[in-house]
């Protein structure tokens, strides 16, 4: 048995700790110390097996199955932006971490920033040497992140592509637990990224399977409703054990504030309708409506976080069915955008953060009614590009040939960033927000966002950190700062 601790994002007067107990056969008794003093935290998820009893091998006693147990614990009554040492003891094993509570406000000083690490899409197989963790941990020397946003595909449960997965929830749960354990426990894996700062996760399709909840032609288990249901159950059990931002329930959005920023973290995957009528549940839509109203009333700046881009067009029928449907493929995409438009109506510019697409991009959308930047979207993807059998080999062969006759392509497997649509959501928003691309970024990457208050606005400095050992492309790209300034109200 060994113990791993990671900090979870929490309101600024408390800490939340995710605890992993690996290779255990029962939930251990725990004792906690905060700055050396014994404490009894609130258990948001009492430490428990990530595999429910129904997903354990039949015919074996639970106490004979070594597996992962996880819990999430909350320590309240703390000071914002303060370093704490947290230790947990279970039997003769212990784990310790140092972590900071989130600050209560975005800094105003010249030399201080609120640093938010934005990452998505990590395929451990393509990063066996743990380069992502090494580079992210080295960021601490430049600008230590206060918060990490894990915006989807932290695991690829549906890989390897060519493996035929038994249509058995017990087998699936065991396989998924191994995938998560590899990334969360290491060695290497995603541990360096998870340890960088308190984190907050949302799932995208590979926390389930490619194009969840829709059938995928490459995944035999997804071709029948019963197969999809078994896979979903196993995947959700693992998501709950490793990533779910407790106390939120699966699919629920998470809100938090670092004044004057107000974050709305939307799970745009778990509750998708198989008939593509909606991305989020009615409850999530109501919460978003309330968040928009509160953001306007309190003159804050909204940060909307989703697993996929809002600045895109609907996938075609074949591309959507074979690859992945985009948010505009769902009937409630317009509802989401119309809500965000309310922020623009009230002169409150908003930031959209996402991943998913395997390239990076910074886009702004100007409100033609005010001339102001109404929205900016920042995409960070991937940390480690997933293997695509066949296509990767073709691209690499092509790169070898083209390198003979021209400049070397340092990212032969990666796609070029796509252009945004000419107008953000032109149908529901009627051409009000023309888009402009500020930056395109190809290759493995992590994005560090720096926020600073300036006047009554917010400055956002965006730094793309290439994840590579290739010195020719390892220099970070700094974009901005982009300035978000409140527009005049009742502007016509």
């Amino acid at each position, binding site marked *: 048995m060994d113990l791993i601790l990671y900090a979870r994002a929490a309101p600024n007067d408390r800490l939340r700790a995710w605890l992993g107990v690996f290779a255990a056969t029962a939930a251990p008794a725990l004792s906690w110390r905060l700055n050396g003093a014994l404490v009894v935290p609130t258990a948001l998820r009492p430490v428990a097996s990530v595999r429910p009893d129904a997903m354990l091998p039949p015919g074996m006693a639970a106490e004979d199955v070594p597996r992962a147990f996880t819990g999430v614990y909350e320590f309240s009554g703390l000071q914002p932006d303060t370093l704490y040492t947290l230790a947990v003891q279970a039997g003769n094993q212990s784990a310790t971490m140092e972590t900071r509570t989130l600050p209560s406000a975005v800094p*105003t*000083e*010249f*030399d201080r920033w609120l640093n938010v690490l934005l990452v998505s899409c990590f395929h451990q197989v393509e990063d066996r040497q743990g380069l992502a963790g090494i580079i992210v941990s080295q960021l601490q020397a430049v600008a230590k992140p206060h918060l990490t946003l894990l915006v989807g595909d932290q695991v690829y449960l549906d890989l390897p592509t060519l493996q035929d997965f038994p249509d058995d929830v017990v087998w699936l749960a065991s396989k998924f637990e191994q995938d998560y354990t590899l990334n969360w426990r290491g060695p290497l894996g995603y541990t360096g990224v998870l340890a960088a700062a308190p984190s907050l996760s949302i799932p995208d399709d590979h926390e389930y399977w490619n194009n969840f909840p829709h059938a995928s032609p490459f995944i035999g288990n997804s071709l029948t409703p019963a197969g999809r249901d078994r896979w979903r159950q196993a995947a959700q059990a693992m998501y709950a054990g490793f990533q779910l931002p407790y106390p939120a329930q699966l699919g629920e959005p998470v809100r938090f504030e670092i004044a004057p920023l107000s974050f709305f973290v939307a799970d745009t995957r778990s509750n998708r309708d198989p008939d593509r009528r909606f991305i989020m549940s009615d409850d999530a839509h109501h919460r978003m409506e309330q968040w928009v109203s509160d953001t306007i009333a309190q*003159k804050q700046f909204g940060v909307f976080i989703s697993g996929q881009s809002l600045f895109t067009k609907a996938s075609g029928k074949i591309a959507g069915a074979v690859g992945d449907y985009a948010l505009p493929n769902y009937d409630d995409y317009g509802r989401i955008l119309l809500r965000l438009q309310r922020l623009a109506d009230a*002169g409150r510019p908003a930031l959209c953060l996402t991943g998913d697409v395997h390239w990076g991009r910074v886009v702004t959308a100007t409100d033609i009614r*005010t*001339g*102001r*930047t109404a929205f900016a979207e920042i995409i960070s993807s991937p940390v480690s590009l997933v293997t695509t059998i066949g296509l990767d080999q073709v691209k690499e062969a092509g790169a070898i040939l083209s390198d003979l006759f021209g400049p070397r392509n340092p990212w032969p497997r990666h796609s070029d960033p796509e252009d945004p649509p000419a107008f953000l959501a032109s149908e529901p928003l009627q051409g009000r927000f023309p888009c402009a691309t500020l930056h395109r970024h190809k290759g493995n990457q992590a994005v560090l966002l720096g926020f600073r*208050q*300036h*006047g*009554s*606005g917010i400055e956002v400095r965006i730094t793309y950190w290439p994840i590579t050992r290739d010195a020719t492309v390892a220099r970070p790209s700094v974009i901005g700062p982009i*300035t978000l*300034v*409140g527009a*005049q*109200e*009742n*502007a*016509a």
Partner: protein
Amino acid sequence: MINIISSKASAPNTLLQEVPRREHEDNLRWLSRQLRPSEDQTGIVLVGGTSTTAFRLRVAQSHVRHDLMPSYWSHAMLLGRPARSFATTPVYEISLEPPQGFTFPPPTNGLQQGRISQYRDPELYPNIALLNTPVSLAQVMEALESFQRQRAVLDGVELIVRWLTYVWGVARAGNPLLDGYGMPSAAMLEIAFGVAGYDLTPGLESRSSCPEAIWQAVKWWHEYYVQQNRPALSGAYYVGHTL
């Protein structure tokens, strides 16, 4: 084109008053008449000069105006705490024509401390304005202290060099405003007031500030400040020279 946004206000700010110059009145006496000392307020002085440098700076800012006419203003500076003899009142600025030369500007990020007396002559500076900002001088001075050590935030030295190449017509140097480089003194003030929580140039979404943008803020952005729960800029001005 410079991305500056026009205010939606239908009428200019009534807190900005034109105060004609009296006969033979120099700028120091005109400014003395406008002073309203307050712990909660800080003064910004705008001047519009007639030197060749000032002419080029005023023309450069025509791109910030919707009519593309030259600005009334060539320079902006922070007015320090008024001295007993007003002429010796300090000003904090990044002048492109410093009376003592530039010496070696990096240690102060280009910031210069001068005296208001150098702007006394109404022949050299026929246009004058004193703007009152609802921010304490202590807050702004604290920000200026940090500014001197934070070239990474705004490189005042780079702005000096870029603007001198334009003003002096070096090689093919173009108008730095069109490339997003603010005029050094105004850009410094915009940063310092921003740190103190006040938007000096709400019409701009970048750091490419200039005296004209500050002028437009005081004249046209009063409603915006009220909407942001902040007092609007106020002040007095006199324009004795137009181009």
